[in-house]
């Protein structure tokens, strides 16, 4: 990479300002086009037949009556998805999840799909498909799935990461261990030890917009896909791999996105829509119903976590130990491993050990959810940290400050930290007015810290300078959190022009080089780096065009304050040329002016946050109200502070829902009982206070403007912050999330009964 990504401090005119968001009006007036807003002439409507069983062998599928039904143009089953994965277990899992092959692995698993001339014909045809199942024993609970007599989901899974490899299959597909030092020696030095088990329930990302796509396969091998996604290039590659298409002949266009939070990093129905289109010879529109989104698109893991934490009386943690068990749905993942890596990452520990177990259960395939796996681990560890602080009589913030990781600390997942921001967030919490505000009856205050890795990745950007000097930019990272506005601000800063003269769009897969998904908090970090690079390349072109215009050597022209300027006194009469002036002459100085960039954005840097919250608990009903909430997080540099605050508030809101109400509830039959927003309750505006934010700006040395990813870390602390606040309000330690009214009442009753 020839591009210099190093941070250089400079005076800023555009970056850090708060212009109106460019997508706002379209979104609130219904003009923005989301996944389901796209239609093509003659398109068919698809519906998916899903398993009513949690675990069953597919004995036979008879689609003949559906195929013969009026209006039906195509029916697909696993027979239409030959295994092209060539031994790639991860892709095979995606294939099997898109359309069950030999067994259905969860309630809602797809077994067949129909494309018909209208929705009624498609729905009616689903009823004509006869599936013969041999129902098998199921297991949905993480701890139950680990028991020796649990039904085994996959006979070919043997626990990895243990020596010797077991000879009998198991639902535990992997064990991963991290840490350093000697935890037993550390506990021997402790004056006080906390040891407790925690549980968190499975939650969904809960995006407002269901998955939707329109697929068109043509006879010449080309295809098009309009889709709501966090990564159209990744969707293109996955769909091409699964269906045997040439990736470059599959053009994927991303719609506006109504939330993703990790759930739209994964293909669910898109290969099915393409397969139906290929079979029918027509375009096919497939929109998931809300119930299908819950039953069959990736939620996060349910977990069971044990934590042991020891400290001296003066508040120094001597050892930390955590055993983390995470569900992955029916396929192997690395969810517990991520939990094990992140659980103690906020602290400087001499002795630490974490062990993660990946557990298969008859639930939907887990997908990433905003800082995947970190919130649950933080809930357990931050609860124990709080309890330990109380037990030794130390303020919870002071206790964390005393033990916080800093530059030079060996992280619990291995490497030694460079400069990091946990300390400043804690210092800011310590002095924040929220921390000393008085509390009323039945109210409690909690706080917690959180960590997430962040990353970058492959990124492209095209910048075209119009002949009137206005600028269009195409980027390949989906805008899920305001990155288009941030790109325009960054480009305005680089070019020295107005934000209003720049239009940013998301390019489709045929107009840009490959881009990784918008995940890992990488959207603004990565694409702004590519945009800076593209702008500097465009400036280089404009510098040369100025030299041509003036008929002077290129090396005598430099760029400053949005203008090409001639160097030295011998060109004293030459007025600087603006972008608009250079662009106006471009037709006679060499043609269109553009800047391109294809790069790897790496060095994103880890991220930390500290949250404070106050709750009030009704002791009669167990109902909890969040009455005040504060997020403190390092953004490196907030390019558009409104959006950064929005990310902080959004993560906190999702975490509050997870902490207080949201959970997948399964019946004895292994079927999901609450697949809808009436029974799966996400917080709405009236449930939440104004969430205060404090943006810290400690520049990331690996980005030209010091930017850090901000999208994910804000969901890490809330589970623990809320649970700590509720525990402090009711005087009983809450160890099972969500801390719902029935759980609070049960805990109060148990406490009263001794």
């Amino acid at each position: 990479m020839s591009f210099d990504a190093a941070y250089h401090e400079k005076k800023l005119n555009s970056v850090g300002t708060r212009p109106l968001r460019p997508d706002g009006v379209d979104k609130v007036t219904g003009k923005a086009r989301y996944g389901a807003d796209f239609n093509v002439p003659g398109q068919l409507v698809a519906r998916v037949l899903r398993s009513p069983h949690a675990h069953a062998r597919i004995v036979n599928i008879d689609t003949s009556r559906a195929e013969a039904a009026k209006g039906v143009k195509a029916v697909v089953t696993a027979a239409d998805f030959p295994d092209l994965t060539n031994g790639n277990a991860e892709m095979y899992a995606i294939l099997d999840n898109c359309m069950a092959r030999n067994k259905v692995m969860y309630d809602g698993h797809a077994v067949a799909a129909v494309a018909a001339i209208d929705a009624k014909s498609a729905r009616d045809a689903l009823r004509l498909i006869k599936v013969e199942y041999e129902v098998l024993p199921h297991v949905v609970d993480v701890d139950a799935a680990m028991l020796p007599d649990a039904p085994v989901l996959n006979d070919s899974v043997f626990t990895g990461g243990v020596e010797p490899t077991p000879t009998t299959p198991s639902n535990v597909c992997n064990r991963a261990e991290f840490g350093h030092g000697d935890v037993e020696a550390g506990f021997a030095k402790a004056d006080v030890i906390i040891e407790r088990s925690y549980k968190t329930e499975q939650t969904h990302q809960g995006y407002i917009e269901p998955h939707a796509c329109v697929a068109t396969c043509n006879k010449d091998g080309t295809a098009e896909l309009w889709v709501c996604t966090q990564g159209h290039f990744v969707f293109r590659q996955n769909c091409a791999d699964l269906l045997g298409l040439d990736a470059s002949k599959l053009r994927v266009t991303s719609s506006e996105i109504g939330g993703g939070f990790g759930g739209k990093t994964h293909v669910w129905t898109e290969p099915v829509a393409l397969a139906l289109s290929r079979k029918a010879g027509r375009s096919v529109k497939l929109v998931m119903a809300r119930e299908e989104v819950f039953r069959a698109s990736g939620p996060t893991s349910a977990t069971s976590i044990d934590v042991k934490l020891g400290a001296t009386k003066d508040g120094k943690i001597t050892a930390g130990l955590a055993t983390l068990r995470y569900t992955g749905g029916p396929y192997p993942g690395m969810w517990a491993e991520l939990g094990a890596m992140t659980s103690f990452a906020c602290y400087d520990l001499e002795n630490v050990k974490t062990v993660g177990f990946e557990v298969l259960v008859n639930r939907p395939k887990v997908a990433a959810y905003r800082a995947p796996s970190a919130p649950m681990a933080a809930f357990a560890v931050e609860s124990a940290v709080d309890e330990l602080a109380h037990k030794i009589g130390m303020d919870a913030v002071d206790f964390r400050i005393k033990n916080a990781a800093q530059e030079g600390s060996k992280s619990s997942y291995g490497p030694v930290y460079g400069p990091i921001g946990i300390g400043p967030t804690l210092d800011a919490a310590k002095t924040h007015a929220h921390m000393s505000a008085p509390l009323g009856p039945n109210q409690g205050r909690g706080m917690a810290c959180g960590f997430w890795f962040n990353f970058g990745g492959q990124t492209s950007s095209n910048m075209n300078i119009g002949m009137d000097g206005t600028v269009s930019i195409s980027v390949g990272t989906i805008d899920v959190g305001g990155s288009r506005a941030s790109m325009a601000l960054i480009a305005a800063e680089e070019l020295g022009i107005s934000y209003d003269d720049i239009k940013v769009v998301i390019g489709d897969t045929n107009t840009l080089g490959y881009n990784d998904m918008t995940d890992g908090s990488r959207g603004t970090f990565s694409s702004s780096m590519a945009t800076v690079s593209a702008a500097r390349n465009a400036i280089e072109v404009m510098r040369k065009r100025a030299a041509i215009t003036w008929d002077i050597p290129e090396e005598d022209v430099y760029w400053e304050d949005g203008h090409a300027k001639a160097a030295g006194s011998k060109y004293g009469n030459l007025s600087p040329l603006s972008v608009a002036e250079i662009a106006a002459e471009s037709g006679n100085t060499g043609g269109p002016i553009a800047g391109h960039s294809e790069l790897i954005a790496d060095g994103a840097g880890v991220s930390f946050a500290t949250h404070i919250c106050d709750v009030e608990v009704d002791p009669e009903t167990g109902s909890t109200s969040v009455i005040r909430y504060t997020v403190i997080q390092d953004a490196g540099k907030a390019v558009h502070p409104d959006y950064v605050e929005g990310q902080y508030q959004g993560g906190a809101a999702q975490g509050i829902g997870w902490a207080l109400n949201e959970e997948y509830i399964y019946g004895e039959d292994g079927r999901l009982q609450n697949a809808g927003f009436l029974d799966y309750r996400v917080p709405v505006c009236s449930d939440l206070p104004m969430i205060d934010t404090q943006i810290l700006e400690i520049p990331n040395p690996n980005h030209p403007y010091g930017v850090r990813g901000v999208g994910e870390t804000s969901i890490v602390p809330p589970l623990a912050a809320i649970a700590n606040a509720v525990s402090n309000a009711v005087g009983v330690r809450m160890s099972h999330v969500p801390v719902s009214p029935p759980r609070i009442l049960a805990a109060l009753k148990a406490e009263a009964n001794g």
Partner: protein
Amino acid sequence: MVEVTLWGGLRPLADNQQSVTIEAKTIREMLRKLAERYPGLSGPIKNDVAVAIDGVIFRDDWSQVIPPDAEVFLMRRLAGG
């Protein structure tokens, strides 16, 4: 010389070594020589690794220069939301 620490899952593929010393100037050279010495690491290196140099995690930029005496960790390639 670079001393690279392997995450637990890789160690059985590298004669149960916790860390391996390699002569390498870049991530690319380090990974290539690791795979040459321990062929079992080829698969994970191709699909599944990130490299932390002095605490900064690199997932893709294999041209990254490894400074002398840098602390180097091979980590699992991370998922994000």
